[in-house]
């Protein structure tokens, strides 16, 4: 074998190694790592979740390197068995949870979404924190009749929550007409 052949063989081998190394170095899409024992921030809601509250919760979770736990609370009417599947409510919850999860993951915050059910929102909440640990709760205040907890529910929450609770007031949807005209 001549020197030229050896050089050619060497070049081909080097190219092969380089290709193999490049192939093996390629990573699957990045998955947000959740360190063991990471803080968990619960964001419970029913019906809808105000974007302002969601963004605030995401910022808090990012600042604390925490996992965001958006939890849709399903209310089971008394006439149904507690274990009845509630497809109408679930149909509302699914796209909402997808949207919340999407927003959080885009912001680099790991998510662990939940759907929890109960006879009332507070019943569902109590069931949730009886079986899971949370380090902070971010609860939306009433929002022009569109989602958010009622005053009574918030009072209950502040009294019974097992951890620090933050009540966030959503941005008003529309300024009253008289303010527009005054501007």
């Amino acid at each position: 074998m001549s020197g030229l052949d050896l050089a050619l063989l060497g070049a081909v081998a080097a190219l092969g190694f380089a290709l193999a190394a490049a192939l093996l170095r390629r990573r699957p899409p990045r998955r947000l790592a959740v360190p063991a024992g990471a803080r968990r921030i619960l964001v419970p809601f029913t019906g809808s979740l105000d974007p302002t509250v969601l963004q605030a919760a995401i910022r808090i979770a990012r600042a604390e390197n925490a996992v965001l736990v958006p939890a849709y609370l399903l209310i089971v009417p008394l006439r149904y068995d507690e274990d009845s599947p509630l497809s109408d409510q679930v149909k509302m919850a699914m796209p909402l949870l997808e949207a919340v999860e999407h927003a959080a993951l885009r912001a680099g915050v790991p998510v662990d979404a939940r759907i929890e059910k109960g006879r009332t929102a507070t019943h569902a909440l109590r069931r949730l924190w009886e079986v899971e640990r949370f380090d902070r709760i971010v609860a939306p205040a009433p929002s022009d009749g569109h989602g958010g907890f009622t005053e009574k529910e918030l009072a209950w929450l502040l009294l019974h929550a097992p951890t620090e609770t933050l009540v966030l007031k959503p941005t008003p949807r529309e300024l009253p007409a008289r303010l527009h005209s005054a501007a």
Partner: protein
Amino acid sequence: MRGRYRILLGMAAGVGKTYRMLQEGKQAHAEGRDVVIGYLEPHDRPDTAVLAEGLEEVPRLRTEHGSLELNEMDVDAVIRRAPELALIDELAHTNAPGMRNEKRYQDIDEVLDAGIDVISTVNVQHLESLNDAIAELTDVRVRETFPDRILEEADEVVLVDLTPEALQERLRAGKVYPKERAEVALQNFFRVEKLSALRELALREVAEDVEARRQTLVLDPLSQQAVAERVLALVTPEPRSQRILRRAWRSAERLGAQLDVLWVRRPGRELSEEEQVSLAALRRLAIVLGAHFLEEEGDDLVAAVRNIVYDRGTTYVFVGTPDESRRREVLRGSLVSALVRELPGVDIRVVANRADRPERVQ
């Protein structure tokens, strides 16, 4: 063998369901069948009482609730008596506290399981899925409801129909309630417009039931097998499995398919606290979604999935984005490729994280 279940459905009290049930019972008795009355609602209607004469009635179970004495169907006595046909009125009835079953339709289920045919009665307003609609139509919230599946599972659902005007006539004649009570009823629940709406609901319910049965009959077993879809979501005890399960549920909804959820646990594997929480949350979500949660143990994930797929007739498998590195994939093979290879004829869908999508360039 389970007994045959025939339900007589009406739009309201007084249309003649109990009467019809007794007529059918008498007819069967005259034809030589062994018929008993399991429970007859005491409506104090003379015509009904006369018709019940000559049919054996299984003694009722008397219970005391405070100062009240309540009569309920004695399920065990009906089963012990073992007739060919039992007539059991008002399937939506709620039993007295302390009875084995909360609802009479659960009692009926036991009777059917004992191989006894049953004819029962119910009004459309008790149907669970119509509860809100009925409350809006009539301003009355019905407390005693029964699940829709009861109608679906019955062998026959027969509408006992009467025009609203004819029902009002019966009320005025005192054939449904005593006259003083009938007057109040005519001003409230039994107004023509309310009865018409209830009648429409009852007619639609039976029409849908007939259509569903017709479709089931039209399809031969082979084509049913080809049409029926069943979705399987593969999960692991970690947060992203919630997303897999949610996406699988949405597809199952669109396909009208049953949803199974499978976790394959490696033998002897201990779960961390976080994993235990995730697994419990997945189980709770499966219940909310009406899915079946399955747990299998095995070293070979693909083999375990294959067994479940063939046992349950799965047509779609949902799996999360594989997190194996390329190196591991080259050395040990890809899970998705293995599933495609091992599950011919089954669709495999990889559930991605939408947040991984590149932003659209404007």
